[in-house]
């Protein structure tokens, strides 16, 4: 069953359109990246999925029902929207305990999730003193309380150090591998490239792409090998298929190993031999550029 289904979802604030006629599905067992520049409507969409904001039009269903109709929603859906949105005066344990009690989740589960995110030692400390990384872990602990099949993360790596980013990335991959639905928003293309299997891309509140990661990258320009050498003209003559630029040679359809072998035989020194893959970033820029052209 489709975990999250948005149908013609719209949100207007006065005259401003935040989300426009957005339709997409999120499937279980994979990480779905929700990509778009800042202000594209990602957070608004997340809040509508969770029943916090009322759509101006259309609908969004979680496991076939509106979020507000779920009896014990945390056992079905776990979400991290804003890690710092907690009462700073409460201890981590009490914060989680209050959330657990609303959904009839036993107190022993609080200890389990604290252990799972590595906060067991600071469970009694007031969360106001937590670093952003710790707050992020606390938010993830809250999302995991009900052992939900569906998880939503809004910009989870924002402001985190490399350790924290790696931890969250690994965690999300693990959750998806367990068969859960993971829906994660980000404006960082590079981050999505390393985490997501599927992409929902929006810009200015409207859908730009709903596609697998490989297909998305494949839409942009092809990969090539960049060759630089102090004797570049001779290298170009030797390889023949290259496209000569001012300070480098761009070769398509030949592997770096083949180029290296040929130039080594000829005794030509190389400064650089790089396989350039089209990045998600480049693919994204191309796509959003197109969508802007259509809209203007």
């Amino acid at each position, binding site marked *: 069953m489709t975990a999250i289904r948005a149908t013609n979802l719209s949100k207007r604030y006065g005259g401003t359109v935040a989300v426009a006629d957005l339709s997409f599905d999120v499937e279980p067992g994979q990480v779905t990246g929700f990509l778009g520049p800042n202000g594209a409507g990602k957070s608004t969409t997340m809040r509508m999925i969770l029943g*916090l904001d*009322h759509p101006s039009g259309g609908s969004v269903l979680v496991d076939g029902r509106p*979020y507000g109709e779920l009896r014990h929603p945390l056992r079905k859906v776990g979400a991290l929207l804003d890690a710092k949105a907690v009462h700073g005066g409460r201890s981590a344990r009490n914060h989680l305990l*209050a959330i*657990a*009690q*609303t959904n009839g989740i036993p107190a022993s589960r609080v200890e389990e999730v604290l252990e799972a995110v590595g906060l067991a030692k600071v469970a009694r400390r007031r969360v106001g003193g937590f670093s952003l990384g710790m707050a992020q872990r606390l938010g993830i602990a809250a999302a995991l309380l009900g052992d939900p099949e569906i998880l939503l993360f809004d910009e989870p790596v924002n402001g985190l150090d490399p350790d924290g980013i790696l931890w969250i990335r690994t965690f999300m991959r693990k959750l998806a591998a367990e068969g859960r639905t993971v829906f994660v928003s980000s404006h960082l293309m590079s981050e999505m490239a390393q985490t997501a299997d599927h992409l929902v891309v929006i810009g200015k509140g409207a859908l730009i792409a709903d596609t697998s990661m490989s297909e998305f990258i494949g839409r942009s320009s092809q990969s090539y090998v960049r060759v630089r050498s102090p004797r570049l003209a001779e290298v170009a003559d030797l390889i023949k298929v290259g496209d000569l630029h001012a300070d480098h040679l761009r070769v398509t359809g030949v592997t770096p190993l083949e180029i290296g072998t040929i130039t080594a035989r000829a005794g030509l020194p190389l400064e650089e031999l790089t396989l350039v893959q089209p990045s998600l970033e480049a693919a994204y820029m191309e796509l959003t550029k197109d969508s802007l052209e259509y809209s203007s």
Partner: protein
Amino acid sequence: MIDVFRAEWTKIRSVRSTVWTLAVTAVLMLGFSALVSAVAQNMANGPVPGSQVIASSLTGVMLASISMATLGVLVISSEYRTGGIRTSLMAVPQRMRLLTGKIVVFAAVSLVVCLVASVGAVGVALAISQPPSVDMGEVARASLGSGLYLTACGLFGLGLGTLIRHTPGAIVSAISLIMVLPTVATQLPGQWGRTVAEYFTTNAGLLVVSGDSHGSLGPWSGFAVYLAWVAVAMIAGAVLMRRRDA
């Protein structure tokens, strides 16, 4: 629903602002009682009559009502300030269930603390003044009335907090409606003005503390009028809470 009550109890007992506002309420009630009784005792030529001792023992209600209203405001406005309201609504998406949980748990905590503080205040005054005779029925009514009145003030704050969602704005509104505007209302001219003043929030509500009657209102009918004011704030807050984005 019991799940929501348990969660709200965990929330209210696990922040310092609860402990502080309740402690301030108790200290104000007992402190004012001791102070006023001691002064009255010194100034009187003979023993102070029992009914007068009971009445003056609850002077602290005036200020304690503000600390209870503040706690009522904080019960919900602190969640809007921190953004924790979103976590609460993700866990309990039926917004009226969440609000009901807050109302019931706050009212229960407030009733217990305010009744104990009121009984304590009357007891302190009686111990200091040692009046020749005491009507125990009057002691019970005054203590009960004071506890109920303070709880109603707290619920007024909770309603205004739900309506305004902003801590300073809601506290200022609560102080205006509980302390400032009732006094201003008494300056209104004519019969119409007198009626407005009589029915205005705490002018009516305080009758249950003093046990007096004023115009057409007695202690309990006055308290009912005050509860109607509280209900209006609460219902307005509830309607907006349902309708607004969190």
